[in-house]
């Protein structure tokens, strides 16, 4: 279970949110400028909250009162960014196994093959990210995050850079990822159609505040 209770001032914008999420996909839904990406970055550890705490499965990742701030690389939270952020100098295969090498956990060829099959990226393994289409790039980014064996997956508008056709192509993979991988997901989006397909729970955000939490009926 993830518990987020954080405050952060970003210029004139004040972010103050409290929410919890369990298994399945929790969608942070709201217009751009609602603070969704900042929340993702604070859960990942890339941005430091001013106050509050972040807990994952009982472990405190951040707590300003207790002066706890677990560094990003120790949090084991898989993150998929809007632009994919694949390493341009590494092959697709090396991108996929990067988290495995850095995390120091034992090689798991079965998990690798499974993720490659799940995301249909077998033919891409020897290519470089520069030669991939937008949709392929995001699929590899999903695989890279999944193969680090994360405790939680953060997906920050992973389809935002794709056109409508590509989105329809990728959505089934995201559903598979949600149902198959059994890793809880926090999914950021401002697209109701996308949210309806992915969400098991919705946290609605506006102007840096949580305005409602509930099921897909919130849309």
């Amino acid at each position: 279970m993830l518990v987020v209770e954080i405050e952060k001032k970003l210029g004139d914008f004040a972010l103050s949110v409290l929410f919890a999420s369990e298994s399945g996909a929790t969608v942070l839904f709201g217009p751009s400028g609602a603070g969704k990406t900042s929340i993702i970055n604070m859960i990942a550890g890339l941005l430091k909250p001013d106050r509050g705490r972040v807990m994952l499965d009982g472990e405190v990742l951040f707590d300003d009162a207790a002066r706890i701030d677990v560094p990003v690389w120790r949090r084991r939270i898989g993150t998929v960014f809007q632009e994919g952020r694949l390493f341009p100098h590494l092959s697709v295969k090396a991108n996929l196994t990067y988290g495995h090498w850095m995390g120091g956990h034992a090689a798991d060829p079965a998990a690798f093959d499974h993720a490659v099959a799940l995301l249909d990226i077998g033919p891409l393994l020897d290519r470089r990210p520069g030669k991939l289409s937008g949709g392929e790039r995001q699929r590899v980014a999903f695989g890279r995050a999944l193969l680090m064996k994360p405790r939680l997956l953060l997906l920050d508008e992973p389809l935002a850079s794709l056109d409508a056709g590509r989105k329809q192509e990728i959505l089934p993979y995201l559903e598979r990822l949600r149902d198959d991988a059994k890793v809880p997901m926090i999914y950021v989006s401002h697209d109701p159609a996308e949210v309806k397909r992915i969400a098991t729970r919705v946290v609605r955000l506006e102007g840096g505040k949580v305005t409602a939490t509930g099921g897909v009926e919130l849309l």
Partner: protein
Amino acid sequence: MFDLSPQDWIAVALSLRIALVATAVSLPFGIAMAYVLARKDFWGKSLLDALVHLPLVLPPVVTGYLLLITLGRRAPVGAWLADHLGIVFSFRWTGAALACGVMAFPLVVRPIRLSLEAIDRRLEDAAATLGANSFWTFATVTLPLALPGVIAGAMLGFAKALGEFGATITFVSNIPGETQTISAAIYTLTQVPDGDRTALQLVLVSIVISMTALVASEWFARRAGARLHGA
């Protein structure tokens, strides 16, 4: 027609050795300095920046003289190094390498710094989320992405070290077989009658070395660039 004496060839070999050692030793320091200047903010940063560039703007003889009065055999630092660590720079080829390394340093730092500044920091964030601590992020993402700059820095440093004259001759003099590089040998030959022929041959040798280094670095840089852009 090509009749360089063994002593001339020694000057050539010595030049190569000095330039290679100066480049190899200044490269790690250059990368570290470039990283600090590109990424860190601290009090006195512009002073450090100016200090790094000093050998570029000072007359080489001044740099050589400064080395002589700090690291010479009887100078405070030089004497300490010799007595306690057995390291002697003055009138040795190692001193020539040191002088060349110091003179080349700003040229090594600059391209590396520029390529570090051009790196998309968000890729480093991505590496951190995948479990890479700052050392591994640097080793597996930052440094490979900055490789074209590192190659350019090494190449410029090598070229500068190969051509260095003023600081070297001031610091370690012009001793055949120990500190006499191609440049110093050519200079000496221009001072004696009938030296022109040999001097010209040494000039040819130094052109060949420089061209080879230039072509090699172009090739490496192109390969590194192609790797980054998905070939």
